[in-house]
């Protein structure tokens, strides 16, 4: 029997590898870049690459293959770029070689596109041009301020114009295009006053240099662009980093499946190519690509994505399965019942898109400021113009000069920096503590919350069961049980293996995983079983009434039946986090898809008063909508696919590290550690950042209070403008740097959680 079982096991392994390999090859081929001379460039991700030696091994190993024209490993992106002369057959050898070298090849997905980030390249180039121009124009302005007159002044103005004009045209484009886009939609954003200020400063300086012989503000225009571009580049880099890290974490979801043809051959088809009625083979450890029914084989399925329940469900011929659920123990053939675009997964995605559209009405703080700021500035300029016209009895030149200088001095340099600099610094602090932020506005939204909704499974609890009562006596029996449990991938078995102390050195042979039931092996001629109670009881001596609690049974042939009960483990710091949040006046509640009793236990352990059990994804969405209509700002913390629509719909959302791919995409923040206290830290950081941003705005406005009257009185000169602008920017940046002091409170995590929920491992 044992040799037969080995044969089966081996075949499953080859199948799994084959199908994964075929999927990878077709994905890589899709993303390939064809170079002119018939060779093709592939980007292959190798996440396990981590040092110079790995780079060396990969480049030498792959470079030695025939047909490889060029190979370059990129350690920052953990990606290899391979150029092949004849792509068809050699790609397979390259992938096989990478496996052999110990670097598991993967499809880079979105990362491939990120290495060629056009937007960032453009911004950095603009920044370089603005930096060059502002340094040189500033150098030419200094002699003018310190007394150069006549021909020298005129010469310096001409040279400044020569440098500043192309620089403004090139480096100003990100602002001009954004301002233009906003104006076309009849909106005002911060870029409108910025563009206006820069263009007017340049225009007036041109006029004065060539016709009027007065003062030039070229330095103000280009250094303004330089400062603002620094903010833009930082902002962009922060988002890229968060996105790249999030996709590094991403498990590869099923992007296609192995279809069994009429003649029994296996071919890999991408998701779009799978039609209802096709028969697919799904190996253990893979996710089902489409909804379907099982036609052959049996297995256990992890449906946590769909139901939120962590306990695996047994499936056999005729069972229905949903796309996105994980096939745990055995290879099965399924018949697709619905095309991928109509699957359960796709329905969830559609719900998310709809929810996200509903949220896009949120307006960023800087845009709200701009909306209030721009009209005030324009009215001030207009008043200045009218006032001067009356005061100077129709002197048009003096009136225009005064009005334009008001617009220049109010150009929101510090305002433009106030938000991005604060966000970038606090995103950096969050990143260092293991919190990825998708977008700066998420911090503003997080600061505004008054309610926090938590999912249960996988969020407040770890999603992995832990042993509540072991029930297996120490000694030989425990050693055997541990040896057997260690060889299973079932979460329950893993928990038991972790709960049994001591060695696992027992001689067991003929290991066999029976899908839907458990694992079986033999020890000195006696069978051992670990798994479902009814199945294990078949070999046990006593067959008393079977326990009803969730758990795993173990027995040695002819011996008694041992039963371990399992319970969910509360995440570290869950109770402390909720206590901290409620200390700040934020109500917490649980939204769970699980049954009432389980949710109640967790709610009690975390001191949460409000909890809702048995909710479907749509119900969570409805609950959030109801809260939003009542004027509440809800933070949603959840991980599963079933939470994804809620994550997208909530005012702001956080997904823990264990979250599903979809959950991570939908959430605003993604935690990279299992530590739930980071939710508390993120909220603290958001509050602090909001305060700093407000201070920044106040500082920028105070500077205007002093500078604007000067400009209105016609007393503004380029020296004052330059000093006022740079100093206000520096003050704003310095104030934002205080966020660098943010630190998570690690003591929260160490604090013991509520005793009733501590896993009680009986040391029998």
């Amino acid at each position: 029997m044992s040799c037969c079982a080995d044969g089966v096991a081996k075949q499953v392994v080859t199948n799994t590898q084959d199908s994964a390999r075929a999927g990878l090859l077709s994905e890589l081929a899709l993303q390939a870049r064809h170079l002119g001379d018939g060779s093709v460039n592939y980007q292959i991700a190798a996440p396990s690459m981590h040092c110079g030696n790995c780079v060396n091994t990969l480049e030498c190993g792959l470079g030695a293959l025939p047909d490889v024209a060029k190979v370059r490993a990129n350690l920052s992106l953990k990606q290899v770029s391979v150029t092949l002369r004849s792509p068809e057959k050699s790609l397979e050898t390259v992938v096989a070689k990478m496996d052999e070298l110990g670097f598991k090849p993967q499809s880079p997905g979105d990362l491939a596109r990120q290495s060629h980030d056009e937007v960032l390249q453009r911004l950095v180039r603009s920044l370089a041009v603005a930096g060059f121009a502002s340094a040189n124009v500033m150098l030419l302005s200094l002699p003018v301020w310190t007394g150069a007159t006549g021909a020298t002044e005129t010469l310096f103005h001409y040279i400044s114009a020569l440098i500043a004009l192309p620089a403004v045209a090139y480096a100003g484009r990100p602002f001009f295009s954004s301002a233009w886009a906003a104006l076309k939609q009849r909106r005002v954003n911060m870029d409108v006053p910025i563009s206006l200020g820069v263009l007017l400063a340049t225009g007036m300086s041109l006029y004065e240099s060539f016709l009027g012989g007065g003062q030039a503000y070229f330095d103000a225009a280009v250094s303004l662009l330089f400062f603002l571009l620094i903010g833009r580049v930082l902002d962009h880099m922060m988002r890229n980093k968060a996105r790249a890290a999030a996709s590094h974490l991403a498990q590869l979801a099923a992007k296609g499946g192995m279809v069994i043809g009429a003649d029994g051959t296996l071919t890999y088809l991408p998701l779009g190519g799978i039609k209802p009625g096709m028969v697919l083979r799904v190996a253990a450890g893979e996710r089902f690509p489409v909804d379907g029914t099982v036609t052959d084989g049996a297995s256990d399925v992890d449906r946590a994505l769909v139901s939120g329940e962590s306990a695996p469900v047994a499936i056999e011929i005729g069972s229905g399965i949903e796309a996105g659920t994980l096939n745990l123990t055995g290879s099965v053939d399924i018949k697709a019942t619905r095309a991928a675009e109509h699957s359960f997964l796709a329905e969830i995605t559609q719900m998310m898109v709809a929810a996200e559209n509903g949220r896009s009405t949120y307006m960023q703080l800087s845009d709200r400021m701009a909306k209030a700021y721009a009209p005030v500035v324009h009215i001030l300029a207009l008043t200045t113009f009218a006032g001067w016209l009356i005061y100077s009895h129709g002197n048009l030149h003096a009136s225009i000069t005064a009005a334009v200088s008001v617009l220049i001095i109010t150009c929101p340099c510090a305002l433009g920096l106030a938000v991005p600099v604060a966000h970038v610094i606090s995103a950096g602090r969050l990143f260092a503590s293991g919190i990825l932020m998708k977008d700066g506005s998420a911090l503003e939204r997080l600061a505004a919350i008054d309610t926090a909704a938590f999912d249960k499974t996988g969020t407040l609890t770890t999603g992995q069961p832990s042993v509540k009562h072991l029930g297996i006596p120490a000694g030989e029996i425990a050693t055997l049980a541990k040896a057997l449990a260690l060889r299973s991938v079932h979460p329950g078995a893993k928990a038991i293996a972790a709960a049994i102390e001591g060695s696992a050195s027992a001689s067991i042979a003929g290991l066999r995983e029976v899908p839907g039931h458990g694992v079986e092996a033999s020890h000195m001629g006696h069978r051992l079983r670990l798994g479902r109670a009814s199945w294990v009881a078949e070999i046990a001596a006593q067959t008393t009434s079977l326990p009803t609690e969730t758990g795993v049974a173990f027995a040695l042939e002819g011996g008694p039946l041992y039963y371990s009960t399992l319970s969910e483990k509360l995440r570290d710091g869950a109770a402390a986090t909720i206590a901290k949040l409620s200390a700040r006046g934020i109500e917490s509640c649980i939204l769970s898809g699980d049954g009432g009793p389980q949710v109640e236990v967790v709610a009690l352990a975390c001191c949460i008063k409000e909890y809702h059990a048995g909710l479907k994804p749509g119900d969570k969405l409805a609950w959030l909508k109801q809260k939003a209509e009542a004027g509440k700002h809800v933070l949603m913390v959840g991980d599963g696919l079933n939470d994804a629509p809620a994550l997208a719909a909530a005012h702001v959302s956080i997904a823990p590290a264990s979250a599903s791919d979809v959950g991570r995409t939908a959430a605003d923040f993604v935690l990279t550690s299992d530590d739930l206290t980071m939710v508390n830290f993120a909220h603290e950081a958001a509050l602090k950042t909001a305060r700093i941003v407000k201070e920044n705005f106040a500082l920028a406005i105070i500077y205007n209070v002093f500078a604007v009257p000067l400009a209105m009185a016609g007393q503004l000169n380029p020296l004052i403008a330059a000093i006022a602008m740079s100093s206000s920017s520096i003050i704003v940046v310095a104030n934002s740097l205080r966020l660098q002091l943010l630190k998570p409170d690690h003591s929260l995590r160490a604090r013991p959680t509520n005793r009733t929920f501590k896993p009680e491992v009986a040391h029998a």
Partner: protein
Amino acid sequence: MNGLLFLIPVALGLGALGLTAFMWSLSNGQYEDLEGAASRILNDEEIEPRA
């Protein structure tokens, strides 16, 4: 005044040189793998990309 006639072009020229050098390094991919470059220096033999 005469000094300015060559000092200003020299100053601008040097600045432009730096700008061009930066633009070149950017388009040449010098910033694409910062971590890798730091580690590569520890490799003994130079890996020649196969022509």
